[in-house]
């Protein structure tokens, strides 16, 4: 997984660049407007942070409480150490209930666990039903954003894809494309044996899982099939329903700029006796997948994340290269932290560096995760574990050696600034510099003044 070459490729893709320009304008504008309508938004952010911290501080106790209450209502709680275990558990559930067709609503944890591949391998048909995820399933691509998964694709590409895969006349109106997807997916909702959803939060107090959606597919998936599986990470637990009320207010405003999403759907236990609809079997799969390890590390604050996407929406790096460049399920600033944490820093080498440390992400994060600080900690880990390129390590060692010898340092830098100054010529700009083409390939480097700081300082001290 290498960020740099993928990022270069994304920079050269005009369709993607057009999509990203549109994306940035919409999302940043929508959040700004929504936040401006809540005079005490900062107070709500602080409260959201406190709720998530309380949840993480009591994670074991809350998970036990959640399990007790969910079980009392007839749900079955499964625990998965890792992605493979989660996929295995879901396959086993499908087998036990004789499932032939699964409809799925959006779940990033299910992407982590490659649930679709595992189910398909045992002959179960899996249909993604979030419009964006459905488009990606047809195109055989991964999502590039956690809440706008298909933001990298243009309408034209989707028109072509639908015409080809559905065998229907090519449509160009967005409303017509949405209608076509609705018509194709509706029979699947009505005929599926099992629905798989994620969970934005799970509530210890009541043993409830809940999803926050706009399309209504999540409600279909959790209402119509006879089996419902909710898969989520162990960190998603919160103590009470009141905690959910507060978190929703900052989640939707940070994500899409809505005061609330169209549907907030809480599911507790199995359908009641005499109910006309609702699942008869409810399985909840709680995935660790590196989370308990992250909890014990100095990156633990990343577990506060409520997956709104605001950090990526506001990140100048994400805005420029899109989500696929990050190489795994979670892109953007939060991805640059959880990806190394979950798949190993050695497998995500450039990610902690895929940031300018500008802190746009930290400023908008609804639960105040200090994202740049965490990226800096990961960078330290990279250095400690010798995971930086040998050229960089050698250069730094050389610099450190020289810097410890002030006389030599003065001599070396004295010669260097004079040479660079001469190379800058009348314009006082360097158009190219051996070994620094990464900089000068795109812009000029201002030439130094011709004297080192220490020389100038000494002169000033004497004058006074």
């Amino acid at each position, binding site marked *: 997984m290498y960020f740099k070459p993928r990022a270069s490729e994304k920079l050269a893709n005009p369709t993607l660049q057009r999509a990203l320009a549109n994306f940035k304008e919409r999302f940043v504008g929508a959040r700004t407007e929504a936040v401006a309508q809540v005079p005490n938004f900062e107070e709500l952010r602080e409260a959201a942070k406190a709720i998530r911290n309380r949840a993480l501080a009591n994670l074991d106790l809350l998970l036990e409480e959640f399990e007790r209450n969910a079980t009392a209502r007839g749900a079955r709680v499964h625990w998965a150490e890792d992605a493979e275990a989660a996929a295995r558990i879901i396959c086993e559930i499908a087998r036990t209930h004789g499932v032939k067709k699964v409809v799925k609503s959006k779940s990033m944890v299910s992407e982590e666990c490659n649930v679709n591949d595992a189910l398909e391998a045992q002959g179960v048909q899996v249909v993604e039903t979030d419009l964006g995820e459905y488009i990606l399933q047809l195109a055989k691509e991964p999502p590039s954003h956690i809440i706008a998964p298909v933001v990298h694709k243009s309408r034209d590409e989707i028109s072509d894809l639908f015409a080809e895969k559905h065998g229907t006349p090519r449509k160009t109106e967005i409303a017509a494309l949405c209608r076509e997807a609705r018509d194709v997916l509706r029979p699947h909702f009505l005929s599926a044996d099992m629905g798989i959803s994620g969970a934005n939060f799970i509530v210890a107090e009541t043993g409830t899982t809940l999803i926050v959606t706009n399309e209504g597919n999540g409600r279909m998936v959790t209402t119509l099939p006879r089996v419902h599986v909710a898969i989520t990470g162990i960190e998603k637990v919160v103590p009470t329903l009141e905690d959910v009320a507060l978190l929703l207010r900052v989640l939707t405003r940070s994500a899409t700029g809505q005061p609330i999403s*169209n549907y907030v759907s809480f599911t507790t236990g199995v359908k009641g006796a005499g109910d006309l609809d609702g699942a008869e079997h409810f399985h909840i799969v709680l995935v660790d997948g590196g989370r308990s390890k992250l909890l014990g590390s100095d990156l633990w604050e990343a577990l506060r994340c409520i997956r709104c996407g605001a950090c990526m929406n506001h990140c100048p790096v994400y805005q420029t290269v899109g989500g696929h460049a990050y190489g795994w399920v979670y892109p953007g600033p939060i991805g640059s932290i959880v990806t190394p944490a979950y798949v190993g820093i050695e497998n995500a080498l450039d990610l902690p560096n895929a940031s300018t440390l500008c802190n746009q992400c930290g400023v908008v994060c609804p639960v105040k995760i200090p994202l740049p600080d965490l990226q800096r900690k990961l960078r330290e880990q990279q250095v400690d574990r010798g995971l930086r390129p040998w050229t960089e390590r050698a250069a730094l060692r050389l610099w450190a050696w020289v810097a410890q010898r002030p006389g030599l340092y003065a001599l070396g830098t004295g010669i260097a600034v004079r040479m660079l100054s001469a190379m800058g010529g009348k314009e006082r700009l360097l158009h190219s510099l051996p070994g620094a083409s990464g900089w000068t390939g795109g812009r000029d480097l201002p030439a130094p003044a011709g004297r080192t700081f220490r020389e100038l300082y000494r002169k000033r001290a004497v004058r006074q």
Partner: protein
Amino acid sequence: MSARDSILNRIRAVKARGEAPAAAARNEIGEYIRTHPESPRPTGDWELVPQFRRMAAAMSSTVDDVAALGDVPGAVAMYLKGQSLPLEAVCWPQLANLDWAAAGIRIHTGRAQGADMVGVTGAFCAIAETGTLLALSGEDTPASASLVPETHIAVVPVSRIVRGMEDAFALVRAERGQPPRAMNFISGPSRTGDIELNITLGAHGPFRVHILLVQG
């Protein structure tokens, strides 16, 4: 060791609790859950019903008033005719004893089917802050009726409008004890912004949500 135990043990190791979590921590979080304290809410000065109307409209619902529950079938018929929709609906059993026939509307009270074009439901309560309906599932209040048809008509007594989600939860606790299988907060018709971030109404659920506020 089971996955459950090894996950919980790893968390306990981080919390330095040892195998048996300290009773103090358990009591503290237990007390927090029992009292379920509220967090601060958005500041703002508004009246319940006007705010509900304003926010429902902002979420693309339409709102109309009826004087009493008995006037609902007539108002539904008028709305359906205005939208050129058939006078047929799947209806919550809870509302089945209204005089639908007199208004010329044919209803059925089963689970909503793919062919149902109109769903008529009540609401457990409604939330002024966001213009939201809360529908609880149950024998007389199936969840599919507000979801499967292209048009959703919801009947809400103004007396059931509360301020925020916390107040809705308080009502659920007071009147039901615990949440039923489905507790659906609904704010306007379904929508998607997945294609070029253009908002399109009627993604998988209803294209239209029409709310009848019952004054009596």
